[in-house]
């Protein structure tokens, strides 16, 4: 009942949006190569349904593994930098740098180190995903209630106990907001990483279709990128709601 109430407006809006799109494409006679209509996209999806699945699987694998390792790396870095402020001062600039190295410069080096396999691709997604988690979680730590800090300190809690029992739970809401960002970026990250030489994947589908002027297929690829990404987001929101259930009002 409640579920339906939540989903119904989204469904309606999406349908309205798609109809509007269809109408605009038809009314203004926009050519398919510029902007295909939802119907075109749907039809083309059906056409290439077999191939989409394996492309999707390939991209999914890269993004999920990249996100996972980004998560582990992000939480690890945030923890270390928070607990050892000296390291934070030193390494924060390098973490910023990591977000500003274009793929074009990174690609040859990554290929040098990891070859053309799935390794450099997951690395790229990881490099994209760990950053929002680090920034958000670090900021989350500072949200800790000082009154609670005072109590735990007075009670003789060790640094690590305070971290595990107080600071980390306090940072959870921020952590999740970082994780949601990462999840959103992970799929695009995987698509971009497929430029590093790949046979399959939505990124490959995207480039091939675009370079051979099949805009409808480009949008098929985008549709699945979006779906994958929204799935990630929803799953993480569920986990968040489950873990932060005490926040819900009764």
């Amino acid at each position, binding site marked *: 009942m409640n579920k339906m109430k939540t989903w119904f407006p989204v469904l309606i809006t999406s349908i309205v949006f798609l109809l509007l799109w269809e109408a605009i494409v038809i009314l203004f006679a926009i050519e398919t*190569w*510029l902007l295909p209509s939802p119907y075109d996209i749907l039809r083309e999806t059906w056409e290439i349904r077999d191939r989409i699945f394996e492309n999707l699987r390939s991209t999914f694998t890269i993004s999920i593994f990249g996100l996972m390792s980004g998560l582990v790396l992000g939480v690890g870095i945030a923890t270390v930098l928070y607990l050892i402020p000296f390291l934070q001062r030193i390494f924060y600039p390098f973490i910023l740098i990591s977000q500003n190295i274009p*793929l074009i410069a990174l690609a040859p080096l990554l290929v040098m180190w990891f070859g053309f396999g799935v390794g450099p691709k997951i690395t790229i997604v990881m490099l994209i995903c760990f950053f929002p988690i680090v920034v958000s979680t670090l900021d989350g730590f500072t949200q800790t209630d000082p009154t609670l800090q005072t109590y735990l300190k007075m009670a003789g809690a060790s640094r690590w106990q305070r971290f595990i029992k107080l600071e980390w739970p306090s940072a959870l809401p921020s952590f999740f907001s970082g994780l949601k960002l990462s999840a959103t970026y992970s799929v695009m990250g995987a698509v971009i990483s497929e430029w590093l*030489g790949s046979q399959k994947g939505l990124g*490959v589908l995207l480039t*091939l279709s675009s370079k*051979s*002027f099949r805009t409808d297929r480009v949008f098929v690829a985008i549709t699945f990128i979006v779906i994958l990404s929204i799935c990630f987001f929803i799953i993480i929101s569920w986990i968040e709601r489950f873990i932060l259930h005490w926040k819900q009002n009764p």
Partner: protein
Amino acid sequence: PTNEPTGEQEQTNIKEVKLVLDWTPNTNHTGLYVARDKGYFKEEGLNVSIIQPGEAGAEQMVAAGQADFGVSYQEGVTQARTQNVPIVSIAAILQHNTSGFASLKEKNIETPKNFEGKVYGGFGSPVEEQMIASLMSEEQADVKKVQITPIGNVDFFTAIKKNIDFSWIYYGWTGIEAELRGQDLNMIYLTDYAKELDYYTPVIISNEKNIKENTETVAAFMKAVSRGYQFAIEQPQAAADILIQAEPDLNGELVKKSQEWLSPRYQADATQWGTQKEEIWTNYADWMRKHGVLEGKFDAKSAFTNQFLPEGGK
């Protein structure tokens, strides 16, 4: 544990070889796909995987030995070699430059002189302006009267819809797409106006070390590739089908029509597919230097070789 010799034992003789493309797969690469999928490589004892490079081109990967072969173009090889990137061109896929400046028929751009007062959509390379200047100077026109607007990665068809008058395309792909769309183009080929601009694009490259140390492998590879292109020259339709089969996400219609246009142009007037002439390498490098788009020393002789073509390119 002892390893029982199995039937796969003899496959250890098969050499793993990586080939990096220059762009997304297209009809320039048909011969490579034919060689792979018709088993020509297998017959030479090679197992070739074809890799798409995305944004980071093939040259550095080949130079660094991460890939054994790659697809590049003459300008790229020239630039790379002046920067000591040790790559060598081992075959020209197309004998002549099929690129040129395209515009919609109704713009009436029929000769370089008509460029005056028009808007050129470029991708931002300094070579472009020099290119246009070269063509225009043949007709005493002034390149200063051309407005150059960078369009980056925006495709030709979008660009000409939006106040761009002409742009630089490869006819074999974008030009054919225009035909498919029923869009009439005026095409000004570089080769028609400046001989020195008839450079090789694309070419197959390998690195210096490979050439010196794995001569047999390179020869075997090129033998298979030659057969592949030979097949593509002789049977355009079948070759196109192989490419479509291999890369089903390509636009099949476009591939077929493009293949038809391109097949006779692979070898063109040459004695054999793939041969390269020193004067073409020298001329273009000289042109580049003259127009200030090439820094550093360039030795044409070491930039290419015909030695791996069947019968040494004779």
